[in-house]
């Protein structure tokens, strides 16, 4: 009797376990496009499909775009669906990028990932580690649906993600990028005796010394969790590197990194800088004329504009500039999420590539820029943005700096934790809890351990 009951309960559990286990996945394949693509785009414009497909390929597209951006993205998706009868994309907002990553990871574990998803490159590196995404090189080269030589000349390389740890293959493509720039209060700068934003880090310190009146007015506000991107170009613009050329170790504790961290230490010791205690506090304080410089994404331009307006236009003259640099040319940190295609089946993978490629085309890109203030992948999109640039001259100015763009070592899965280590080092220095040498040594040691998969 007891045995029967035990058997019954075990069977019940087995049924549930089976129900919870991943569904039989379609044979995953990273095969190149098949002979007859179901939907193609003939040109880099919004061309309709070449022939109606026999069966509609349905794609689940997970993204992290909310509010106005979600609306704009949904409008683009609707346009794509209308012009590509063989493909139906459904976009789903899955929270911010970190929530999106968690959901995708859980979906991979459950064996039911989306067909394509937006994510940062270090997150996509984790998907590659899990063998969950497909390389896009073959699709890109395909004569029917791939990029032409002209396309590749037109598209900035920072929108095509090659992963050095995975044979330098392209696992993701981007339809948006932004860059980190320096926001400055021109009136405060002028009052301190400067008629233009500082060109070098020495000038930056001089401006800070002249303009800071702590605790009411400071020169710089650092995010409470540190600012790894800011630190990255503080190193680059001193001629340093974050990583060794072979990508086997981190090098941001060397002279350039040390100089950057020492400058940061000086800023806090001399009370020219404070730590933020709330999200976007730098934006708020900038709009109130309490801070001379902030460093942030160009995607924040509309938010700065509205924050200044909301604060009653206390800040009359302000602008953006490339960060100070000791190098001959400026260097800006270009960043942003990309889109990866998950292993499903040949039709879906191909359709997913067609969709991403379409998003990178001129017309969709121009629409997306207008909704998001991001930069488009193609240089040629600038023509379609003439009116937008006229109405938003700061955006137009920043667009001209894309040529100075550099990318963080974001194609390594270890970069995400490394950003935290750098942030912690900055916070430790800002709080006087460690010397610049100690903080950097500790951060590099941890980063190298993460890089080695420990």
């Amino acid at each position, binding site marked *: 009797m007891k045995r029967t*009951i035990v058997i019954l309960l075990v069977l019940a*559990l087995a049924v549930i376990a089976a129900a919870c286990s991943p569904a039989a996945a379609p044979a995953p394949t990273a095969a190149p496009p098949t002979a007859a693509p179901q939907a193609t785009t003939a040109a880099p414009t919004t061309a309709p499909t070449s022939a109606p497909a026999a069966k509609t390929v349905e794609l689940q597209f997970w993204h992290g775009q909310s509010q106005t951006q979600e609306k704009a993205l949904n409008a683009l998706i609707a346009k794509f669906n209308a012009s590509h009868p063989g493909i139906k994309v459904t976009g789903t907002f899955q929270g911010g990028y970190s929530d999106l990553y968690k959901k995708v990871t859980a979906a991979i574990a459950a064996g039911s990932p989306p067909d394509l998803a937006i994510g940062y490159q270090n997150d996509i590196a984790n998907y590659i580690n899990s063998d969950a995404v497909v390389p896009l090189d073959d699709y890109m080269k395909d004569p029917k649906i791939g990029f032409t030589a002209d396309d590749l000349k037109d598209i900035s390389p920072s929108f095509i993600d090659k992963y050095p740890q995975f044979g330098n293959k392209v696992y993701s493509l981007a339809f948006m990028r932004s860059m980190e720039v320096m926001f400055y209060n021109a009136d405060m700068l002028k009052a301190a005796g400067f008629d233009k934003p500082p060109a070098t880090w020495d000038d930056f310190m001089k401006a800070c010394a002249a303009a800071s009146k702590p605790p009411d007015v400071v020169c710089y506000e650092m995010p*409470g969790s540190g600012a790894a991107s800011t630190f990255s170009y503080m190193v680059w613009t001193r001629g340093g590197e974050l990583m060794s050329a072979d990508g086997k170790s981190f090098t941001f504790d060397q002279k350039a990194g040390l100089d950057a961290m020492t400058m940061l230490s000086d800023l806090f010791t001399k009370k020219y800088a404070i730590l933020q205690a*709330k999200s976007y506090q730098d934006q708020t304080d900038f709009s109130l004329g309490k801070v001379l410089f902030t460093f942030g994404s160009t995607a924040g331009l509309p938010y700065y504009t509205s924050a200044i307006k909301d604060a009653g236009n206390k800040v009359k003259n302000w602008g953006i500039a490339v960060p100070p640099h000791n190098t001959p040319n400026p260097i800006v940190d270009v960043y942003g999420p990309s889109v990866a295609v998950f292993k499903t089946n040949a039709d879906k993978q191909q359709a997913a590539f067609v969709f991403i490629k379409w998003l990178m085309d001129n017309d969709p890109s121009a629409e997306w820029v207008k909704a998001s203030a991001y930069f488009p992948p193609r240089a040629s999109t600038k023509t379609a943005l003439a009116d937008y640039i006229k109405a938003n001259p700061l955006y137009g100015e920043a667009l001209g700096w894309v040529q100075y763009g550099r990318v963080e070592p974001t194609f390594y899965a270890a970069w995400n934790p490394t950003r935290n280590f750098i942030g912690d080092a900055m916070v430790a220095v800002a709080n006087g809890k460690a010397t610049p040498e100690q903080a950097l040594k500790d951060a590099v040691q941890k980063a190298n351990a993460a890089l080695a998969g420990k």
Partner: protein
Amino acid sequence: MAQTISTAEPVRSQVTARTRATFRRRIQWVAYLYILPAFAIIGAFHILPVFYAIYISMNKGAINKFVFVGLDNYIRALSGGEFWNALVVTFSYALMTTPFTIALGLFFAYLLYQGVRGRGVYRVIFFLPYVISTVGSAIVWAWVFDPQSGLANFILKRIGLEPLRWLIEPSGIFEVIADGRHWTIPTWAYGPSVALIAVSIFSIWQSMGFDVIIFLAGLTNIPGELYEAARMDGANPLQLFRHVTIPLLAPTTFFVVVISVIGSLQSFNQIFTMNQAAEQSLGGPLGSTSTLTVYMFDQLYTFSNYGYASAIALLLSLIILALTLFQFKFLARRTQI
């Protein structure tokens, strides 16, 4: 004939016994069928994940590409400083929240029990923080603890104290006090970080309502005659509380203590949301609010160390189990449970 009669009786009793056994078995079957859905749900969502977590904790690598490493993850946790730091933070947090939550919960429940007019309204007011979204509350509390314009520093200044940096201050509270007076104290005496104290205040505010409700339910179960008898014997209100309320409320107090200790050791939402609201890294500043749950989450999602994170989760479960057993062994007897 007589033989026939004498054999028929045992046969009948045997048949009756068999029928009874069959009936009992049928009832058992029905009982098991009744519990089957609950068992299946608990099995699928509680028991199986535990075994899966044990499996993952003995592996390393990316999702879907695990490599068996035996007890390596446990050894790494127990031999690394970060785990022990997180354990110290966890216990500091539990010690700063649980006693205050319980004491304040009992205090306010006792006040409400004294027949205050509008008791129902107060009950709702005390319970509200418990049901309000943690994210929303965290944003409000981040404003309260804002170093520049927050209410907390306004109060400190009004009573003649130095303002604090609250959620962004990684230094220990005694270290901050000693620094302000130019004293030198040893590292071990620094105490919990100011940031952890700020999170604890938020947590006490949020959890206290639950304790108030439970204590209030416990208080209403104490027979009124006992208070009357004690009053006739000349007991003053303090004596009533000490000699009637406290002993008779002991089972409720025991329940609240066990639940609160488990809750504080598992606490995650309050810390996570306060970190986010104050623009801190997870467990920041500088790991000073990194409890075991936060450390585990960070290992899982920032580092993608699924095996190691599972090992931490299981170690935390063992710690909670040991503490709960300890409480049952040494406290339950005193509360006559």
